[in-house]
């Protein structure tokens, strides 16, 4: 049986009267890559900051690596690595000096420090660039250096807050290769992202909306929300007009545009073949599996509507 690296119960944080995180409950297993999805202001960063012991929860509990964060925030810090949403290394210092600084902060002795430095430089592909200023590095390299500095002390749990923001697609893919390798070696990773395609790398996902946990599970599990509502993709040269036309169709629950196509979510128990046949000529339509974007939009929409859908 695998252990839970992170256990969160009814975690809540208020800023004045505003509830940024509202009774969030979830677990992350050891060695799992757990993704946090959510639009801006959903409360992703606030949750992570509470888990790292940087912010006190208003109520609820969180255990990270077996330590109660609310009780002993300092003990948690030695067990976690954290990479913030903003690039947060010293741009005026060289790569080497940044690594040396963070080794010192985590109290690594000289020998361990040297070994870890070599490991991190190799992992991040920064060998030979030790004396470059961190501020002069291109985005992708900075990201890898930041990751390197976050894992110098070999933390079993890693929190990554939008690690790939503003990084080119190739670097993003390389970055995810690193993350997957780390998870394979037993490191637990909690990562937030805006890129839905990146969510495919996560073993399980949580969708946060307005401080609440709106859905949780693996991608397959999340797709279950569409279990009895088929989705039909219709191609068109004018998707917006088509979307408006379809929205009034009696069998259609809702529509959304995906590039040059429209996804129409059909009402429960609708016969897909009859629906497609009824669309008429000139339109290419086929049933599709729900994409993560369909899922995300649907979950957020349901979380927003005041009364739960029947």
């Amino acid at each position, binding site marked *: 049986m695998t252990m839970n690296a992170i256990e969160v119960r009814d975690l809540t944080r208020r800023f004045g009267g505003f509830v940024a995180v509202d009774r969030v409950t979830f677990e992350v297993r050891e060695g799992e890559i757990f993704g946090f999805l959510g639009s801006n202001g959903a409360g992703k960063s606030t949750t992570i900051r509470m888990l790292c012991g*940087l912010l006190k929860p208003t109520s609820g509990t969180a255990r990270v690596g077996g330590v109660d964060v609310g009780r002993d925030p300092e003990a948690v*810090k030695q067990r976690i690595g*954290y990479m*913030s949403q903003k690039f*947060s290394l010293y741009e005026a*210092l060289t790569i080497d000096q940044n690594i*040396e600084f963070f080794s*010192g*902060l985590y109290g690594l002795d000289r020998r361990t420090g040297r070994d870890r430095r070599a490991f991190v430089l190799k992992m991040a592909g920064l060998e030979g660039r030790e004396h470059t200023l961190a501020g002069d590095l291109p985005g992708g390299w900075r990201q890898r250096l930041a990751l390197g*500095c976050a894992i110098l002390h070999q933390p079993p749990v890693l929190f990554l807050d939008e690690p790939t923001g503003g990084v080119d697609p190739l670097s993003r893919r390389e970055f995810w290769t690193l993350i997957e390798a780390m998870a394979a070696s037993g490191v637990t990773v909690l990562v937030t992202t805006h890129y839905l395609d990146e969510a495919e790398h996560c073993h399980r996902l949580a969708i946060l909306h307005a401080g609440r946990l709106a859905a949780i599970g693996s991608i397959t599990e999340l797709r279950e929300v569409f279990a009895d509502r088929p989705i039909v993709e219709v191609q068109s040269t004018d998707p917006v007009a088509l979307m408006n036309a379809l929205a009034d169709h009696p069998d259609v629950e809702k529509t959304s545009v995906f590039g040059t196509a429209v996804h129409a979510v059909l009402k429960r128990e609708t016969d897909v073949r009859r629906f497609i046949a009824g669309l008429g000529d000139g339109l290419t339509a086929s049933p599709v599996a729900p994409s993560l974007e369909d899922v995300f939009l649907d979950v957020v929409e349901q979380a927003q509507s005041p009364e739960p859908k029947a």
Partner: protein
Amino acid sequence: MRKVLAVGRKEMRQILRDRRTLLILLFVPAFFLLLYGYALNFDIRHIPLAVDDRDKSSDSRELVAAFVNSGYFDLVAGVGSPSEIERLMDLNRVRAALVIPEGLSRDLRSGRDVSVQVLVDGDNANTATTVLGYSSAIVRTVSRQLRIERGGRVAPPRVLLEPRIWYNPELRSTLFLVPGLIAYICMITAVVSTALSIVREKERGTMEQVQMAPLGTMSYVVGKTVPYFVVSLASAVVIVVVSMALFGLPMRGSWGMLLLALSLFIVGALATGLWISTIADTQQTAFQLALLSSFLPTLMLSGFIFPISSMPAAIRAVTYVVPARYFLVALRGIVLKGAPPSTYSFALSMLVVYAVGMLSLAAFRLSRQRTA
């Protein structure tokens, strides 16, 4: 300890890498102050005056009254000996003293010229020059009056002024500026740089990264401030040494005392910077706070440029909470006068009070932020 070292080393590297800013911050103002220092001239009033009247005649009383009624002098003490004057000047209780010799009245009546002495504390060259100007004008007026009263003789006697300037006989204002300059530079390196460097870390997000590490607040604060302490202390010592070499600044007191006064002042300033950094979220706010809380008071309210004794009472009251005020008293006592420690021990203890108070304030705010 390893963690404190890591923070300190990193901070020192950042300071050194930023040395152009450091140079601009330190030397441009110093240069301009030296330049303008000679040109500064102010209307000075209410100069505290001690009088040693050894004649005790109506003529001598008339002379004293002329000084007091001029509005430029406030009679704060009647004294009976030169050593008493020296003591009062060391304590900064008086800035000038009038010594009227025995036999003034008798000599005048028998038609002889007499000299009265005016002793001026020269450590502020601007004030000293002005004081001398006032004194000679007053003495000349009195002399003329006496001659009219006693008129009719062939050659009526005159009252002459015999000026004596203590501590800085050549009235070199550079010398007077040096202690103020040290205060000013300590303020920049200690208050402004500390506050800015911490707030910059908040702005850039490096602060958050550091807070994620298992590092006590104390380690962070110590590692962060010690480099600025070293830089401030070093620049102060450099200024003293350079002034000794270039402007002939006397170092009359002990180096140990100088370092003690400097350290106390710098610790207070560092604590102020720390406190500002707990309030401000942007470098701009931090800079403005530093300007208002430390920078301007050091320039305007410490007695550096404007003598405290000639300030309106309300403003003078404010100067009591300006640490630079006490720092300047101590520094002038040590460097320019070589006065005994008892004369500035009060100033030093006020610096201790300020440093302790500011440190507690900063520590309190830090610990509250820590558990946000």
